C-alpha cells in the first residue's frame, strides 16, 4: 500500500509522524531484507542442490519485494520474471543432476570452508565499507519523486542522485553514488563465472568424439561441396547426419 515513495531515496513528504506510529516502511524493508539475506546465507550453507535453488528463489523473491516496496514495480516484476524464473531452469538442472545418488550432497572440506569464509568476510567488509561511504540521503525538493520509477535507482548507481541533482558537494569526500560497490559485485560475479567454468570444464577424453573426427577431415573447398558431403554422409548413415532422417 505504500506506493508513491521511493525507499532507496528515503524521502518523506509526510508531515512529522507521531512518536507512537510504527514506521511500516522500515518494518517491511527490514523484513524483506532479513528474508533475502537469511536465505542467501542458507544457499551457501545448504548441501543439497535443489534446496539451494529453492533458497535462492526465496532470496530473490524477497529482493523483488524490496523493489516493490521502493515503488519500482517494473524492476520488481522483472526481478520475478528473469531472476526467479531463471532459477527455475537452475532448479531443473539441479533435479537432473541429483537424480543420481553421488551428487545429492555437496560438501566441502573443512579447509575449504575456512578459506571460503575468510574470502567471503573480506569481500563483505569491502562492500560494507564502500556502501557506507556514500553520501547520506536527504529529503528531496517536493515533486522530485512524484513518479516512482526505476530511473532513480539506476541513476543513483552511477552517482546522479534524485535528492541532489546538482551532483556531489565537494566539501565532503564521500562518494555521490553506488558505483564502487556495484563494480566490486560485478567483478566478483565475473570471478565466480570463471571459477564455475573452470570447475565444469570438460575433462580430456581418451577417445576422440565424433565432432573432433569430423574436424580432422580435410575441410571442404566450398559450401556446395560441403553440402554434397553432408548428403553423402546422410546416405551412408553417419553420426553427424543425425538419426531421424
Amino acid at each position: 500500500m505504500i506506493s508513491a515513495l521511493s525507499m532507496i531515496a528515503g524521502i518523506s513528504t509526510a508531515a512529522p509522524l507521531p512518536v507512537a506510529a510504527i514506521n511500516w516502511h522500515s518494518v517491511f524493508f527490514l523484513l524483506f531484507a532479513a528474508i533475502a539475506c537469511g536465505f542467501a546465507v542458507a544457499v551457501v550453507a545448504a548441501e543439497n542442490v535443489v534446496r539451494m535453488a529453492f533458497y535462492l528463489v526465496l532470496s530473490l523473491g524477497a529482493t523483488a519485494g524490496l523493489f516493490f516496496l521502493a515503488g519500482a514495480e517494473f524492476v520488481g516484476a522483472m526481478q520475478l520474471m528473469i531472476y526467479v524464473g531463471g532459477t527455475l531452469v537452475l532448479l531443473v538442472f539441479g533435479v537432473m543432476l541429483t537424480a543420481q545418488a553421488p551428487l545429492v550432497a555437496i560438501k566441502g572440506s573443512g579447509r575449504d570452508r575456512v578459506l571460503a569464509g575468510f574470502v567471503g568476510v573480506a569481500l563483505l567488509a569491502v562492500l560494507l565499507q564502500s556502501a557506507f561511504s556514500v553520501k547520506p540521503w536527504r529529503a528531496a525538493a517536493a515533486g522530485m519523486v512524484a513518479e516512482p520509477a526505476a530511473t532513480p535507482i539506476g541513476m543513483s548507481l552511477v552517482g546522479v542522485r534524485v535528492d541532489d541533482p546538482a551532483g556531489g558537494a565537494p566539501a565532503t569526500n564521500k562518494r555521490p553514488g553506488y558505483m564502487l560497490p556495484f563494480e566490486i559485485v560485478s567483478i566478483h560475479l565475473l570471478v565466480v563465472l570463471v571459477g564455475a567454468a573452470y570447475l565444469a570444464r570438460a575433462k580430456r577424453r581418451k577417445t576422440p568424439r565424433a565432432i573432433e573426427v569430423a574436424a580432422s577431415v580435410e575441410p571442404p573447398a566450398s559450401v556446395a561441396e560441403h553440402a554434397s558431403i553432408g548428403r553423402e554422409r546422410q546416405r551412408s548413415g553417419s553420426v553427424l547426419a543425425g538419426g531421424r532422417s
Partner: protein
Amino acid sequence: MAEFLINTVGLPDWLAWTVTAMVAAALILNVIAGGALVFIWAERKIAGRIQDRLGPTRTGGKFGWLQSLADGIKLLAKEDLMPDGADGMLFRLAPYVSFCASFCAFIALPFAFDFVGQRMNVGVFFVIAVLGLEVFGVILAGYASASKWSLFGAMREAAQVVSYEVPLGMCVVVPVMLAGSMDLVTIAEKQAGWLTNWYLFHDPFTFVIFWVYVTCAVASVNRAPFDLAEAESELVAGFHTEYSGLRWSYFFMAEYGSMFLVSALAALLFLGGWNGPVPVASLLGLSEGTGDTAGYFVRLLGMANLLGKATLGVLIMMWIRWTLPRLRIDQVMMTCLKYCTPIAAAMFLGAMLWQVALPGGLVPALRRPAGEIREGWLPGPGGAFALPSADAGKVAKVNP
C-alpha cells in the same frame, strides 16, 4: 477503507492499515477457496453430463451440491503420508509454494473499476511473472517425492511451462499495445462501451490471437489436453503421486485458482473486463466514478460481470478437458513451437500494422472518443480500496 477506519471508527493508524490489508487478503483467499469449492462440483457435474451420466446426485440434496464439502471433509480426515526417501522439508513446502504463487497473482487482479488488491502500473506483467512461479511447487513436489513417476511429471511440467510462456507473453503484448498501458485497470477501462469496443473485436488479428491465448492459457495452467505432468494413464498421477489428504488438495486449489486467474485475465485483456456487452450503467446515466452509492452499485455490477466472464472461461476449460484426448509430450511441444509461437508473432505484427493503417477502426463511429476515457483513481474516499492519500500511513526512512 483505511481512512474510514481512522476517521470514522477511530482506530489507530497501524491497526487500521493492518485490518485493511487483512480484509483484502481474506477476500482474495475466499475467491480462490470458494471458487475451488464450486468449480470442483461443477467439474464433476460437467464431466458426468459429457460422459452421459449424472455426476453427483445425492450429497446435500438435489444436485449433489454439497459434494465438494464432503470431499473436503474426507481430505481433512485422510492420513498425511510421506515416502521414506522423500526430502521432508521440500515435500511439505511444495503445495504451499504452488498455492502462494496462485494467490499472489490475484493481488494485482482488478475485479471492478476500483476493486483491486494493489493497483500496479505493470499489472499484466506482474500477473504473468507470478503465474510462472506456480511451476516451482510442482517441480519441488516431483523432486522431493523420491518417486520416478513424480520426477517425470515434474520435468514434463517444467519443459511445458517454460515453452508456453513465450507465446503467452506475445499474446498478452497485443492488448497492452492497443491500450498503451500495462495497467490492467486502464486496459479494461479502454474497452468500455458496447461489445464492439472489446479488444476481441478490435481487428481480425486480435480475434485470432485471443484463441492462441486460450490455448496457451490452458497449457500454462496444466489442464487437459495439456496435463502431461499428471498423465494418469502413464504416470499414475504425475507430480502428486505421493501426496494425500490436505496437501494434495492445496495443489488442486492452486490449479483452480490459476484457471480462474487466466480466465479473468482473458476477460480483462480481450473481453472488456468488467464492462458488459451492453453498457447498461452508462445508458441509465450512472457512472462508477462518482463515488456515491450508485457508483458503488455500478462497480458491484461490473464485478459480477467480470466474475461471470471468468467463470464462463473456467467452464469452457472443463468442457475442453472432457472432450479432447490428452496430447503426447512431443505434440504438446509441437503445438507450442510450430503453431502458437509463429501465429502469435504474425498476429502481433498484423495488429501493429492495423493500428498504423486504421487507427480509428473500420467503423470509427462505433468507437468511444479518446477524450472520454477516464484514467486514474477516485480522488475522494469513494472506493473501497482507494489509494491512501499523500499523508496517511505513509512513512519512509529519513536521513536528516
